[in-house]
């Protein structure tokens, strides 16, 4: 398989770009694998990649009912950050950030990790206090964080509304300079190609319809195109976690909600960073292609439909205009939704399940994309060693039994918290 580089691009171009091979194979499935990962999104593909790379387990299949990267991986707002403060989260997301920083080189695929920083705006003295605390925890954990006052935010982001009568006056911001964005599709494709190179079979257009059982243990999956046996089965199916778990007789502390995203027409550079407008639950960045990428809150009703309703469209665009009045005459190009696996405390699960042979990766809420590399890395570790890594040790299913909610938002855990 071709190694990607400027040189290879040049070499193939001279041959009319006709000699490029497939980025990943389209294999016939084997009858049996050591590990079957259900879900060919970023998390599933990353899990397969790290199983092969870190643990030498290459007899792996990733089964995807549609096209790889077509779920939330391909429909999020591409933000990458590690500004977490709850024990259980901090080290995990920081591992993710560190993996992101070298991911293009590791995968030999440019995932366009773009560390242009992320600002969480504060709109009251109370929010500034909370931001100060968050910064302290982050720094205590070796994560970069800076607290800016209003004047510094204004110097850096002159296009926000600083008028005296702004509805949510900007008091300051907490900033993570290593945060930013990555090209979401490229993450799926890069992991797919990397996993495929190490022998992983990626099976698209194949839907898991049930499990194979032996003596109370799951020993494979049934699909719409035949059964596949597996030593272990891992679920990475985000908004469909509840559905796939139910087939195994499990009821998860996860609800499915739709979350919308928005992109404008492409413009010359305007926003060179990521900005979160906490007062109105809104965030904005600008893609390398020039589109402003906007996100908002959940639609607040349970749904599997990958589309949302008007109230959030209106709320999000009004937030954009309130925060950045100059966008008024810019135009919305497209909006869509993904279905989120909202856990009861806003934090995920990477754990063995009570069912023998079945492993769960889910409950990502809004935050799945940024977690992709660490999620795969930790899930691979959990599957390979049958025990969690220290970084995902708290992402268990029984934490609710113990009362160990990992509630990052600080509003009390509930299914639509993050």
């Amino acid at each position, binding site marked *: 398989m071709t190694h990607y580089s400027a040189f290879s691009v040049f070499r193939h171009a001279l041959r009319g770009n006709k000699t490029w091979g497939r980025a990943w194979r389209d294999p016939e499935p084997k009858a049996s694998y050591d590990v079957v990962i259900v879900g060919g999104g970023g998390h599933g593909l990353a899990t397969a990649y790290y199983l092969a790379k870190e643990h030498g387990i290459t007899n792996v299949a990733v089964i995807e009912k549609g096209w790889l990267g077509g779920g939330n991986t391909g429909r999020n707002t591409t933000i990458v950050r590690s500004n977490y403060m709850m024990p259980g989260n901090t080290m995990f997301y920081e591992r993710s950030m560190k993996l992101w920083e070298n991911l293009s080189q590791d995968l030999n695929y440019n995932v366009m990790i773009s560390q242009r920083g992320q600002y969480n705006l504060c709109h009251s003295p109370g929010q500034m206090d*909370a931001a*100060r605390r968050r910064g302290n925890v982050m720094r205590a954990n070796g994560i970069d964080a800076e607290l800016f006052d209003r004047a510094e935010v204004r110097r850096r982001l002159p296009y926000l509304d600083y008028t005296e009568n702004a*509805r949510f006056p900007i008091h300051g911001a907490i900033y993570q300079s290593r945060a930013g964005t990555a090209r979401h599709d490229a993450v799926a494709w890069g992991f797919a190609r990397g996993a495929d190179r190490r022998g992983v079979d990626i099976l698209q257009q194949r839907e898991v319809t049930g499990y194979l059982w032996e003596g109370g243990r799951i020993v494979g999956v049934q699909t719409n195109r035949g059964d596949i046996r597996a030593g272990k089965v891992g679920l990475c199916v985000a908004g469909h976690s509840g559905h796939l778990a139910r087939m195994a007789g499990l009821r998860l502390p996860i609800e499915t909600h739709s979350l919308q995203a928005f992109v404008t027409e492409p413009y010359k550079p305007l926003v060179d960073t990521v900005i979160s407008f906490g007062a109105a639950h809104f965030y904005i960045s600008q893609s390398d292609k020039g589109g402003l990428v906007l996100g908002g809150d959940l639609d607040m009703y349970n749904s599997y439909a990958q589309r949302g309703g*008007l109230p959030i469209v209106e709320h999000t665009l009004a937030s954009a205009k309130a925060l950045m009045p100059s966008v008024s005459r810019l135009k919305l*190009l497209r909006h869509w939704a993904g279905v989120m696996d909202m856990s009861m405390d806003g934090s995920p699960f990477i754990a063995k399940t009570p069912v023998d042979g079945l492993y769960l990766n889910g409950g990502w809420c809004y935050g799945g994309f940024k977690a992709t590399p660490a999620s795969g890395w930790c899930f691979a570790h959990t599957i390979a060693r049958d025990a969690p890594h220290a970084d995902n040790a708290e992402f268990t299913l029984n934490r609710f039994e113990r009362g160990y909610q990992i509630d990052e938002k600080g509003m*009390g855990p509930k299914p639509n918290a993050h």
Partner: protein
Amino acid sequence: MSTRLATSGRLIDRSKQVAFTFNGKRFTGHAGDTLASALLANDQMLMGRSFKYHRPRGVVASGAEEPNALVNLGEGVTHEPNARATTTELFEGLKATSQNHWPSLEFDVGAINQKFARFLPAGFYYKMFIHPRPFWKHIYEPFIRHSAGLGKAPDAETRDPDTYEHFYAHVDVLVVGGGVAGLQAALTAGQSGLKVLLIEQTAFWGGRTPVDGGEIDGKSAEDWITEAVAALEVMPNVTLRTRCMGSGVYDHGYVLGYERLTDHAPEADGPRHRLWRIRTKQVVTATGAIERPLSFSGNDIPGVMLASAVRDYVVDYGVSIGDRTVVVTNNDDAYRTALTLKKAGLSVPAILDVRVHVHAPPLVAEAKAAGIRVLEGMGIAKVVGGQRVKGVAVCSQAGEGAMVEEIACDCVAMSGGWSPVVHLWSHCGGKLLWDEEHAFFRPDASRAPTGADGLPFVTTAGTANGHLHLNDALQDAHSAGKIALERAGGKAEAGAVVPQAQGPDEAAMTPVWLMPQGAGYELKMKAWLDYQNDVKVSDVQLAAREGYESVEHTKRYTTLGMATDQGKLSNINGLATLSNALGEAIPQVGTTTFRPPYTPISMGAIAGEARGEIFQPIRKTPIHAWHEKNGAAFEPVGHWRRPYCFPKDGESKHDAVMREVKNTRESLGLLDASTLGKIIVKGPDAGRFLDMMYTNMMSTLKPGKCRYGLMCSENGFLMDDGVVARIDEDTFLCHTTTGGAEHIHGHMEDWLQCEWWDWKVYTANVTEEYAQIAVVGPHARDLLEALGGMDVSKDALAFMEWKDGELAGIPARAYRISFSGELSYEIAVPASFGQAFWDLCMQVGAQWNITPYGTECLHIMRAEKGFIMIGDETDGTVIPQDLGLNWAISKKKEDFLGKRAQERSHMTDPTRWKLVGLLTEDKSVLPDGAYAIKDGRNANNQRNTQGRVTSTYHSPMLERGIAMGLVLDGPERMGEIIHFMKDDGETLVAAKIVSPVFYDPEGEKQNV
């Protein structure tokens, strides 16, 4: 050259000249022109540059599907980037500039990219720019970001001077599209008497039909349209709107309309755009069809246009694109263009028809009879020219592109067939089927979008339903109108006569996805699919070769269809190219998802009135105006603005706060506490209900008494607190925090509606019904007595009691409660009396030097007393037991929300951090949010922690810093000194662990 013809132009008024500028150059057009037609009339063919290769771009279409002719419109505060010239109506003084080039439109350095096109194929950036690692961030990406984007971003200071509004419409049948099909569907539906709304995105009715010709009921199409509109206008149940686009169809019959009110007349009064939020029982999409380009080498050179657009510019605007136009087609419709041009006196050197006709169909025969040379089985090998078309190399469609002859021309009119506009049909789940005969997707009526009742709520009509022939479209539109009105509960008018149309029959088209079909790499590299994003046939084939086989992968890998036109011209051609490369049938490959809006809509329109200060309403207490007048420094609390303090002239905020505390503690203070949530809970089961909501026992509370209560979530975490007063046997009034009123009310209703729906309890949020004013300090009772009307003596109104009565003649409810440790009353008066009561307190209280105080003083006084504050001491992870509030948790109750949760192992873990007071050794104020360090280091080699600061203030009474915090084993470590890390991550501050009650620990001050 492109120019204005001496005659024709049904949409323009030749008597009215309109002056405008393009790139600073002055031009003149006519009223009724679009910016595109006016530029073309002035031989301005070049209008922009493409995204990636900066190829010269001219207009290719005549409507919403235009991918090329995008301009910056206006300047300064009215600057609008990426405006489509084809849908921009010309007005006097219009200023447009072209985009995405440097230094000029004609000479663009970026065009060098096309020389390297071979080295910049689809997805090249995923393969390059990997090493060396820092180069991506510092060199490659900044360069790409700078090169990307099209229109100029607005300046930071730009404030849109225009207004926008929302309009709510409720109708039975919404018809989208005002062509003949839309008009007919609206007529059919309107005749039933149902409420009908018909919207059309352009400024005129009739769609393409007046250009395409044909007769309806023996009349010219134009006459029929005029009569149909007149008939609709007199129907009282029908509303018509032009310049109003159907933007998106959402669940449950919700449709968004986008009306552009003053874009064509910027001087006019009123809002610029209006967003129609339409609730309809049924939608009819009569959205027409869009012509497809053909994929041949050089099909992007300015002067190559859709055949229908060439025709539109002649008929609608009296503009000819070129003197010599070669028509290239795979269908009969493009012959209309040739005939139109011929009739206008222009030259058509040849029609290249990829088909071979045994018997010439009527339009072909007519063209031949008109003396036009028809070359059958022929196509274009490549277009000759750079910034303008100079000629075409003709070849056999069946071959590899060997030139048969070269024909000099300055315009190429191409037609690859038509694609119905299925966007609105598809937005909400409507499915498509592939029509082999016409090679297009059309709506599958058996799989329509369904509403909440599971029944279809969208019907499609006319060309949008795949009926290209005028009469078929009319009949279909009538039937769609009938289906819609019947589904909407109406009754079709009996014996309605459907108009009959006459027009020439057309022969079958032949799908052509590549021209010539055996084109090699060099030709395919110049055969454009997506003009704006520079995606060519070769790019799609590369994507397929590399395994990006899903249509979504191809789209995302090549950026096909991701431009501002969202693939209106390119998607079907790209899809067919992909399916050919994969050897699969087109319907197997499928389409990408159609998403709203149909064309981009302004963010201003969506935001509507929600802008600036009124983005979300600010909540104000009845005394807000007084606070403003008296110099309050405000802070946002929830959606309220509350006075933080009241600085006097020249006084700092800090000094003001200190003064307010001292004055209140030593004499008398006044707080506007109206923002506190007030929820009435009433009914025979109210006590039982509150016993579940609060950790305390509320059902035993006697009428006339108050009790401080804690509210926990199901997970045991403390979510709110406040004083509950029992008004009578059946009625309680629950005070919540300022920020908590709405969500606590929601929380109560959640449990009542979902779990205890059979309990007889009613709740009402009455927060804004009352102004609530805290009278606080040693002279509090003196003030109330001076106001007179109510016995507020120690015995008549004991601590934690309330009573109704009058104060200074104002109906009042007095609660004797205290959040400061002082003698304190909270007086609730009807909101309308709030200001009057406040004024009286200020006047009468002057003798005790009464001072209004703000939230910071409130915070300091409560912290001096060790009272917790929701949001400071709590963060969603804290349980009452952490805060030493066990006394407020009933041991007698069988159950309450959070009880079971608080018994879980992590909740009872003895190592949970607990609330203590903290006093710095140097009397300084501890930094907020600071952490106490502990021996040892974590996995990241950072210091371990053992506690954190939750509240920290300078106490003017103690003249030192005081703080509260959560500390490991805190209550057992009284007197111990621990160290807190400052923000700099280095400096440590030593603090002693003490009781959190710093001031008046015996509570003597309020016990008077």
